[in-house]
């Protein structure tokens, strides 16, 4: 069997840096994706047909086109039209945010619809404004029921960041590719990053279970 992990330790610092890039892209995309997804979800539930139409078109496009193609369009395509340039990090953040917003908004929409209408009516009957009802009553309850779906999205997002290796951002996957080309060994670097991805996902899962238990305090009888 031809396996030699002794080539790996010298690259651990390099991989650690790449891991922070992966996490950075994930967190940026998660943040901007979520910020974008909340208004999108409400627009999907709007009584104005135009808003509903725009948002379903948005979701259809970003779900219907492969993420890799979206990345290519943002990084290589857009500068050709605008003349400006995105750094690989900017392009990755933009493409992943727009993409995850499409998925997150669907998850949130389901959660908002699942909030009992009586909760909203009770707040209305108490004279609370529509905005405060959304912020204090509907969204907290919707988030609670969508938490598993949101974590799922987060995990997908984390793994999807591996695609940014194709636009020369040195994330974990790209780092492994570079190590392969230097050491002529493939199994060891790829196995190492596979483990790193796996551990990050497991940590996310654990954290989310904690949060779930914490937010479900109000359901305990």
């Amino acid at each position, binding site marked *: 069997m031809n396996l030699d992990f002794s080539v790996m330790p010298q690259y651990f610092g390099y991989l650690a840096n790449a891991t922070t890039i992966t996490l950075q892209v994930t967190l940026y995309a998660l943040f901007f994706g979520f910020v974008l997804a909340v208004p999108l979800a409400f627009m999907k539930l709007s009584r104005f047909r135009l808003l509903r139409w725009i948002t379903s078109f948005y979701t259809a496009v970003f779900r219907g086109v492969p993420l890799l193609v979206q990345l290519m369009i943002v990084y290589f395509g857009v500068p050709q039209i605008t003349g400006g340039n995105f750094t690989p990090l900017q392009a990755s953040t933009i493409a992943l945010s727009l993409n995850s917003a499409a998925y997150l908004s669907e998850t949130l929409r389901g959660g908002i619809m699942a909030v009992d209408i009586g909760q909203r009516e009770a707040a209305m009957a108490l004279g609370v404004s529509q905005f405060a009802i959304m912020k*204090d009553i509907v969204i907290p309850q919707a988030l609670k029921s969508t938490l598993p779906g949101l974590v799922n999205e987060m995990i997908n997002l984390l793994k999807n960041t591996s695609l940014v290796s194709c636009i020369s951002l040195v994330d974990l996957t790209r780092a492994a590719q570079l190590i392969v080309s230097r050491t002529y060994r493939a199994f060891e670097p790829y196995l190492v990053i596979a483990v790193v991805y796996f551990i990050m996902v497991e940590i996310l899962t654990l954290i989310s279970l904690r949060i779930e238990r914490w937010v479900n305090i109000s359901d305990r*009888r």
Partner: protein
Amino acid sequence: MIDVKHLHKNFGSLEVLKDVSLHVDKGEVVAIIGPSGSGKSTLLRSINLLETPTSGEIVVDGITVTDKQTSASALRQKVGMVFQHFNLFSHMTVMKNMTYAPVKTKRLSKAEAQEKAMKLLERVGMSDKANVYPATLSGGQKQRVAIARALAMDPEVILFDEPTSALDPEMVTEVLEVIKELADTGITMLLVTHEMGFAKEVADRIIFMDDGVILEDASPEEFFANPKTARARDFLDKML
């Protein structure tokens, strides 16, 4: 206090309220009874704009509810409502349920709101449950908190939409007692109910509705002893 004039409400092609007019004086306790689908709840929900009337006019304490310029929130701060399914905010403790709207809409300080909430919870016998979440309460307890929550806004009028219909039989009494006590304080009350005995006991007036129309408007003694319409007689025969 409440003036309803020629109120119509359609849900699509279905006409739920057909030219309903009603006047309620300050301090009056009015029970609205009638078969399911007669429009009782819709009438009640129109008064605080949970339903938008198709046509007609509603005036509550000088505020023209049906005027497009009227702020729904300002109106609703004067008109409390208690629902069949309690609708306590499930992610908030009993105390937070009580203080949320007063702090948000009346600019009360948190401490003031809590002090007031505690007094109201004592009044409905729920002060020992201030820090629990609604999920831990029985139906009767939830409804008592819901009543206290409505009172925390100092409403002029309080609307009860079948407040005991979702309760187990053994819990009906505790809620009715709270409502009865409230009726004795002189607050204006509109109560949609299927509890005939209770309506007879607490109401100053009985409104009998059927098929979107008010058929009778009489004192409880008169209504229960000799209802004028055949429809009301038939209804009472089935209920009693």
